[in-house]
């Protein structure tokens, strides 16, 4: 019983750690002396609880206190909240405009860089480093050269063909550039890791944009960011984009 005597008070107050609570619970079932002690403590606790609830404030006093503290803060609250809300709204609007603008600029500079890469590839006598129309040759070529893997679509349409691929860099991050021929046009498909272009707004659906006579399409998929660009119509780019999205 001695081991428990000091703990019965904390037990009654519900302050004993769960493990000891259980142990004491079990002990009380077998020890009449401790049980009697605990019961008496509970009785006293309850008695003090109700004896302590002795005084009730008068309605008149309640009203007086309410009046003494209510009106002033209410008026000052209006004078505080009106300008505060206005300032807050302005700040939010400013931040949104700023971040939209910043995102817009980031997009713009990314598209310019990609357009440069695309044009450089077109102008080069060796636009691709791996020359093959076979996706099973092109895809393994990238292994070990870039820090991620991707899938290339199986092309059924005779008008679309793979020309090959090469390594491209965007913001110092390596990625893949694949060149496709669609009729007589060339399309570049760039693939980078999402975190390498994290400053761009991510989007799982395609975003389309026109810049410097090129059409762009971009979307995010499985942690990778895809860009399709060429001098063809948006719908032609979309067809290729859809093949990529479905590639397994």
């Amino acid at each position, binding site marked *: 019983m001695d081991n428990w005597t000091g703990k019965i008070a904390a037990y009654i107050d519900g302050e004993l750690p769960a493990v000891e609570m259980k142990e004491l619970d079990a002990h009380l079932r077998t020890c009449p002396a401790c049980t009697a002690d605990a019961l008496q403590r509970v009785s006293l606790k309850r008695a003090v609880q109700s004896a302590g609830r002795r005084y009730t404030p008068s309605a008149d006093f309640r009203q007086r206190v309410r009046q*003494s503290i209510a009106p002033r803060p209410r008026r000052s609250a209006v004078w505080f909240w009106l300008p505060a809300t206005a300032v807050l709204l302005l700040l939010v609007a400013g931040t949104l405009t700023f971040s939209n603008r910043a995102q817009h600029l980031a997009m713009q500079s990314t598209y310019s860089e990609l357009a440069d890469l695309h044009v450089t590839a077109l102008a080069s006598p060796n636009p691709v480093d791996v020359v093959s129309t076979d996706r099973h040759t092109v895809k393994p070529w990238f292994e070990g050269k870039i820090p991620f893997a991707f899938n290339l679509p199986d092309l059924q349409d005779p008008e679309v063909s793979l020309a090959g691929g090469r390594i491209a860099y965007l913001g110092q991050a390596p990625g893949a550039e694949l060149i496709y021929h669609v009729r007589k046009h060339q399309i570049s498909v760039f693939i980078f890791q999402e975190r390498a272009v994290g400053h761009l707004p991510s989007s799982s659906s395609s975003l389309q944009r026109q810049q410097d006579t090129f059409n762009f399409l971009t979307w995010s998929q499985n942690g990778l960011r895809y860009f399709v660009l060429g001098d063809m119509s948006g719908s032609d780019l979309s067809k290729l984009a859809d093949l990529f999205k479905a590639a397994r």
Partner: protein
Amino acid sequence: MPLFDQLYNFARWLTHDLTEAEDLVQETYVKALRGFSSFQSGTNFRAWMFRILRNTFLTSRTGLKAATTVPLDAEDADELPAGPETPETIFISHSEHQLLQETLQALPLHFREILLLCETEEMSYQEISETLSIPIGTVMSRLSRARKALRDIAQQKLARS
């Protein structure tokens, strides 16, 4: 007004006087409102309010007088099991509500307040520790001594009557 009834009850127990209690409660709300910025969200609001009320009381004339009788919490009271014929059983059998109230009233301030916070307000040891600004170990030892004092004084009162 949050906690109004509880704070008023506590104030009456501290001051033993209606007018003083009303002034104390009113001052507590004014101070709480003025100092609300100093309340740290995430900490206990109830303990904060009770602490304001108690600190205000302790700086009042009645409070200063009552506080001078507060002894140090240096020694822990020996925890004794209640005997067979104890005031607890008598409280229940005779339902001596009034006797218990008189006993509480007669207790020194530091015992009275901790019993009220623990039993009547059902505060946790942690909340009591925040309200009274004392460590949890002191809460437990003081609570134990307060309960013993309550039993002793009740016993004396019963013996006299």
